[in-house]
């Protein structure tokens, strides 16, 4: 059974409205916490929205169903975005979001599967998600189970060598049930990825590692749905979706600026951001209609 919203196959405009509502919630939550990673939260929000409300076969009322799809947030610092999406999908009450990073809260700055329903593995140090995803996919393959595994990685995170170990292993075992999504927002904590250690050409790299590669606009709900869907021909290879995104997406003064990796807005900046996101939430952009 899919999460309640996923069952109803939401339209792109519904996903858009939801994603912007969750952006506002996440920003307010981060402001209250006084800590967080807004830039990556905003760049990955549309991907997470499509996954949880349109793709993943997960049931908030039975989060450990053995036949659920697995989603692993390898870029664990974007826990704020994941918690928001999990709450909106019904895994825990939205009111709990107010506890984000408060003393003794279940919602740590990085996700903890032993405390938060819907989390598959604890992440935070980078380069951990894909190896775990490969293991989950191997388990499903061995069982001939239909469930799929999705791993969301950052682009800067690909500087971690463990990703490339795991990419080779996934290819060796022909894990067609595994999808890695790269949040290609082009920025890492301190600078542009290209000014740090460039990870391009991503498509060529993953392709040469034996993966089936797709490139999409990571803020285009329809394109994400199509790329992440299990419909259509499935080559016997793991899938890599390079999702081209913008760090800080949705708030003009945050977009494509490295300092918003983990900066927290002032009260005034929050108000500006919320106003802008509120306006965009109700926009019916032509490509969505």
């Amino acid at each position, binding site marked *: 059974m899919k999460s309640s919203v996923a069952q109803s196959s939401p339209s792109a405009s519904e996903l858009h409205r939801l994603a912007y509502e969750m952006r506002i919630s996440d920003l307010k939550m981060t402001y209250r916490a006084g800590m967080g990673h807004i830039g990556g939260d905003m760049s990955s929000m549309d991907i997470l929205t499509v996954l949880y409300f349109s793709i993943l076969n997960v049931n908030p009322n039975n989060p450990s169903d053995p036949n659920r799809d697995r989603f692993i947030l390898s870029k664990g610092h974007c826990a704020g975005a994941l918690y928001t999406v999990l709450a909106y999908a019904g895994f825990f009450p939205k009111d709990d979001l107010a506890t984000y990073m408060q003393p003794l809260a279940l919602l740590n700055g990085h996700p903890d599967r032993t405390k938060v329903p819907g989390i598959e*593995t604890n992440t935070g140090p980078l380069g951990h998600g894909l190896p775990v995803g490969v*293991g989950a996919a191997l388990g499903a393959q061995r069982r001939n189970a239909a469930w799929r595994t999705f791993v969301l990685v950052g682009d800067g995170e690909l500087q971690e060598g463990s990703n490339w170990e795991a990419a080779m292993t996934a290819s060796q075992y022909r894990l067609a049930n595994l999808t890695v999504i790269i949040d290609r927002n082009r920025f890492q904590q301190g600078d542009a990825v290209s000014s740090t250690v460039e990870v391009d050409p991503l498509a060529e790299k993953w392709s040469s590692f034996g993966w089936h590669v797709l490139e999409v606009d990571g803020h285009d709900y329809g394109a994400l749905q199509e790329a992440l869907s299990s419909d259509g021909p499935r080559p016997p290879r793991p899938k890599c979706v390079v999702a081209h995104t913008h760090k800080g997406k949705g708030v003009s003064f945050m977009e494509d600026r490295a300092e918003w990796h983990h900066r927290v807005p002032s009260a005034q900046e929050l108000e500006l951001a919320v106003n802008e996101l509120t306006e965009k939430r109700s926009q019916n952009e032509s490509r969505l209609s």
Partner: protein
Amino acid sequence: MNHDCREAFAQELEQLAVADDNVVVVVNDSIGSSKVGGFRERFPSRLFNVGIAEQTMVGVAAGLANAGMLPFVTSASCFLTGRALEQIKADIAYSNANVKLVGMSSGMAYGPLGPTHHSIEDFAWTRAIANLIVVAPADSEETRQAVRAAARHRGPVFLRISRMGVPEVHDASYRFEFGKAHVLRDGEDVTVVANGVMVTRALAAAELLEAEGIDARIINMATVRPVDQATVTAAAKETRGIVTVEEHSVFGGLGSAVAEVVVEHAPTRMRILGVPGVFAPTGSAEFLFEHFGLTASKIAEAATSLVNADA
């Protein structure tokens, strides 16, 4: 007659695999050195070789556990614990993944291959991680039972297994339990605490001490974490001092674990025998044991010094 504990591990693992279809093995090209060639022959689809990639090896095991499997990771302890320590911490222990980590050929068993291949830091590294049981069996019987206990326990376990042949010190009547030390020889004068391949040396030291009229208590402390506080405290109170012996650095291992209990609960004199904070010179494991004083006579000497110390 000496037995290779890796053989006992492999036999027990195969028996577990027959009984439980969820038992799988993850290796980093370490099939031969982990003695899991037999497992691969019997259960080819249940052995996952990720290549020479320790971080992925441990992460993959966490993922297999997430998928409902019961993974045993078997790899040279030096690489498993050193290269993948953060995966052990985050993916296994912190995530409470039901994974059994098996560090093979531990300590200085690789001898002249040198300090890169020695794992004399693994107790210290793993013992500092929450939610991880750390065990170094002394012989084949204890290895078999520890493997079974690890499979039964729902949660992370690290087993440290030697490639050096050791004589049996336990018989089939022995009952291994995590966190429970085994008093192999009772004694009133002094205590020797050892584990792994050092247990037989501690027992030999007891013979030497007996010839001198010293009655030594010999304790096999297979579980380094959680350490058996009651047994340590009793030994500290009932004998005149404690010698610890380990195939490990003296920093952060068995001696440290025992000392942590002693200083808080029953202060007494201790001598901590192990590798004294240096990288080993070239030599076989036996040579290095002599070199670092990890022998029956040196253990007896340390014990005698505690007995003769002023009260």
